[in-house]
């Protein structure tokens, strides 16, 4: 993922799916958007206050945790570059690879027309050990696509 100069305040942002219905269907200011994000985070934190029985149905997962690094204070991802840990998972120890490759290719549109489109990819891998959501150490490989 390239370093973004994207300004979220210039986007016609709608509420992400699953947020309060009163937000749906109209543009949000950045403040409202970040407020929505805060409510999501608050809900997640609040889950820790729920009785254990309320969480009993949630399966324990060996899935990895996202990296602690964030973009826009929301998305758990890192850019790539010299000296930058490109891992998208946290509590990780292992091999990593990054490939930003550009080129061309042939696109076939739904109407059957064809055209040449440029491509740009940010492909990564992580292979090693990690602490999963279940708190245990696991071995695994992951791709960032």
């Amino acid at each position, binding site marked *: 993922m390239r370093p973004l100069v994207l300004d979220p305040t210039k986007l016609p942002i709608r509420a*992400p799916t699953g947020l309060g219905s009163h937000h749906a269907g109209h543009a949000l200011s950045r403040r409202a958007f970040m407020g929505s994000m805060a409510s999501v985070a608050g809900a997640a934190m609040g889950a820790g206050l729920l009785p254990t029985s309320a969480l009993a149905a949630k399966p324990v997962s060996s899935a990895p945790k996202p990296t*602690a*690094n964030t973009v826009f204070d929301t998305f758990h991802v890192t850019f790539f570059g010299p000296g930058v840990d490109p891992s998208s998972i946290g509590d*990780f120890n292992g091999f990593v690879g990054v490939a930003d490759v550009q080129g061309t290719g042939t696109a076939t*549109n739904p109407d059957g027309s064809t055209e040449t489109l440029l491509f*740009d990819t940010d*492909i990564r891998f992580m292979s090693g050990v990690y602490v999963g959501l279940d708190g245990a150490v696991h071995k695994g490989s992951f791709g*960032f*696509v």
Partner: protein
Amino acid sequence: MDLYRGQYDFTNFSTQVHDFDPGIDPYPGGLFWTVPKPTLGSIELGRGKASMSMTNLALKDYFDIPNALFRFELPVSVDANCSFDVEWTGPVTSTGPVNTPGSTGELSTTKAKMTWSATNSLGFRYVSNALGTTSAFAQLGRVQNGVFAD
């Protein structure tokens, strides 16, 4: 994996027409564009060589990066799948320490090439040209973060 018409626009993404990625799970604070079990070949850090491939990977087409992040277009995405082969070809041109706070390790700059194809549920198809690709940035290394960092 991103597609642009005519020219790249990495600032406003005005020319981007497709964005294939696996999404963020759970959105927005979960695992970012990350999927398990790619097929990895041998990793030779000293030679800057490695490989990764996936076949018929289910993902989404979000059409452009701003929408993939902030989900403001309707529909937000359509179903898609892709296959790709990435090869880190070497040689290593530089090696240095990881300087991300909370991480340690060593990373080497190398070269890469790839081929890939994708389709979406609207009937769009794309096949990359194997020749003439540019390795804009490629890196291999070992990292430790979180509880594994020194």
